């Protein structure tokens, strides 16, 4: 259900992006009005983050965590349903704004005072606030469920240091969600009270503080980046070992760097606000912490490469997405680290460089991770294999189009093109770079079309997948594909991180951990 929800909003969000790119394809274009443009980029950002990536990851987590830890159900199935419908309600309300006088138009981070009544008089922002409060509550519910499930329902023999890495990362992620979303919700409530009851939280002209909104938003917003990245890391940490035919290199490092990321994530948010004009001490502190967080992420990248080293790699679509993730996410990480340097940030903030960076992280990172995960677990979830041939078309078109669109936006940013302008004059290079960027978007659009077609025709085929088509080692592959309503009639013995490896290679088992 979560996954369908995500797919549905992905299509809407994607169409919005296509309109945006069509508008930007040529200088001085007048395809859509500035007002429409503002609403579209706000909705595109909000939709993709809160209604696509979050539900997709939560959906995978909800489906896979019980299977991977040998449990029959999540700890609180009703809470689960509650979370889903809250997210759905939130999304519906957000889109209802279009029928109620216009969508929100203040960007996905909705800066005050632009988002206050004086400057945004339609009800769009109100719908944005209520919609996000609801999806936020949904996410907190899901996180509560993840953490309790992992702590209480593991198979009796499975200790915490034997969790599959995907589960481990969702587990840590649960804590991140629990700590980050309340900050957003508090800020959203305050702004809603501002707008509905004329309070003064974020209105500087009557004593409030617009900067405080930025603090609340980014104190949530930066952990949110990791909330979206960690599960993708988890997926990659499952996919790469299986298709390299080797156990993960440095399990403990991957696991503990996750904790380091989660903790550091709460100490870096001001790097989104360097341009606000805070003291050098504050900027210096957050510059240092932002560079620091690159270290655990780098450790993970090295571990994944180490896993592939001397492995016998099977180039399935899932593995190829994992590799694309590795390359493009690293680019996103590096462009991110460049923002940690305050003067560079001052130069590049609010340019297309930022747009390129966020897309490398969310699309080149999280979305590629999700694609890898979908191709990997699709046979388990539906009992049918997605077509590898169509998958490769999808992969190459998407990766090619993605880099075509966003790699050049780094240049545009350095050339000084500001983000969020609905059109631009014909300055040197701007025209050609934007045109290429828009053409790249068409490639991605076609790729997603192929992906949808692939899902559609695969679901019409009869069920043919074996229990363990990839010869993987974690518990979910010991169940039939798709699993029965009760996941496990009987659990295999669990003594290491790879129970199915031990089962199939009794003469050469992994080291016993319990």
């Amino acid at each position: 259900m979560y996954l369908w929800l995500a797919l549905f909003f992905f299509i809407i969000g994607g169409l919005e992006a296509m309109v945006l790119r069509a508008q930007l394809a040529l200088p001085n274009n007048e395809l859509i009005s500035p007002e429409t443009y503002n609403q579209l980029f706000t909705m595109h950002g909000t939709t993709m983050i809160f209604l696509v990536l979050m539900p997709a990851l939560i959906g995978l987590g909800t489906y896979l965590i019980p299977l991977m830890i040998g449990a029959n159900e999540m700890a609180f199935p009703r809470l689960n349903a509650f979370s889903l419908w809250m997210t759905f309600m939130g999304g519906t309300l957000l889109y209802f704004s279009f029928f109620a006088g216009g969508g929100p138009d203040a960007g996905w981070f909705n800066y005050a005072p632009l988002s206050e009544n004086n400057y945004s008089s339609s009800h769009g922002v109100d719908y944005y606030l209520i919609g996000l409060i609801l999806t936020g509550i949904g996410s907190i519910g899901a996180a509560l469920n993840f953490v309790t499930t992992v702590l209480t329902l593991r198979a009796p023999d499975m200790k915490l240091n034997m969790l599959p890495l995907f589960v481990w990362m969702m587990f840590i992620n649960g804590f991140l969600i629990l700590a980050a979303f309340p900050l957003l919700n508090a800020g959203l409530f305050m702004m809603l009270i501002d707008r509905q009851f004329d309070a003064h939280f974020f209105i500087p002209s009557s004593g409030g503080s617009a900067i405080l909104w930025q603090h609340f938003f980014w104190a949530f917003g930066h952990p949110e980046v990791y909330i979206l990245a960690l599960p993708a890391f988890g997926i990659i940490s499952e996919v790469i070992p299986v298709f390299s035919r080797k156990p993960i290199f440095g399990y403990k490092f991957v696991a503990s760097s996750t904790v380091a990321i989660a903790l550091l994530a709460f100490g870096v948010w001001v790097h989104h606000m360097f341009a606000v004009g805070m003291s050098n001490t504050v900027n210096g502190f957050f510059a240092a912490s932002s560079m620091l967080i690159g270290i655990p992420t780098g450790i993970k990248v090295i571990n994944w490469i180490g896993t592939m080293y001397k492995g016998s790699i099977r180039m399935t679509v899932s593995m190829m997405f994992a590799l694309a993730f590795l390359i493009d996410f690293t680019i996103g990480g590096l462009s991110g680290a460049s923002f940690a340097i305050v003067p560079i940030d001052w130069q590049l903030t609010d340019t297309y460089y930022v747009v390129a960076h966020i897309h490398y992280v969310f699309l080149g990172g999280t979305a590629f991770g999700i694609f890898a995960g979908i191709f990997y677990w699709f046979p388990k979830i539906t009992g049918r294999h997605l077509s590898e041939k169509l998958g490769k078309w999808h992969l190459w078109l998407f990766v090619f189009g993605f880099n075509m669109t966003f790699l050049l936006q780094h240049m545009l940013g350095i050339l000084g093109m500001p983000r969020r302008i609905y059109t631009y004059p014909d300055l040197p290079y701007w025209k050609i770079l934007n045109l290429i960027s828009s053409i790249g978007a068409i490639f991605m659009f076609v790729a997603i079309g192929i992906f949808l077609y692939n899902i559609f025709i695969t679901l019409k085929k009869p069920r043919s997948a074996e229990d363990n088509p990839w010869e993987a080692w974690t518990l979910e592959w010991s169940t039939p594909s798709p699993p029965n309503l009760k996941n496990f009639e009987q659990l295999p013995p669990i003594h290491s991180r790879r129970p199915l490896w031990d089962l199939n290679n009794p003469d050469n088992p992994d080291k016993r951990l319990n």
Partner: protein
Amino acid sequence: MKDKGKLLILLLVGSETFFFISLIIAYVYYRNFTNTVDTVAHTLDATRAGIFTLFLIASSVTLIVAKNALKKDNRKRFKIFLVLTVLLGVIFISGQIGEYIGLYKKQITLDSDVFGSSFFTLTGFHGLHVILGLIALTIIFLLSIGKMERVGVAAFSGMDVYWHFVDVVWIFVFYFVYIMPLL
């Protein structure tokens, strides 16, 4: 931990802590930002609020007594102290409502200035949590009149964590809103 209900509430409470920290931060931030907050805060009656605070703390004590009674299977004592907890909570809430009415009469409202905005939001959200807790406690009490078996220690233990949490939050709110301007 075996009791997943209690674990759930513990995590929820942990999450809620961040929510209230944000609201308190807003209040304290405005206080450092302009001195109007303190000027207005002086009109608050700290002694009166202190007395109502004692009622809320007392409700936590009675809840502990009720819990111990339930553990010893002393159902009658359990019910008496549960009702006492609810009553103390109601007294606290009515105290707060009284205070709101007083402030509104003095033209200190949600939309008057930053003090009003942050004060009513912070105490209002806390009040909502108290009311929610009261409803849940009442439900447990009503269940305990009917079929006793349905009120296990387990169902009660989550509620118990929640109520103490609401109490502790109030102590912080009380300190930051009522005491700090006096110091």
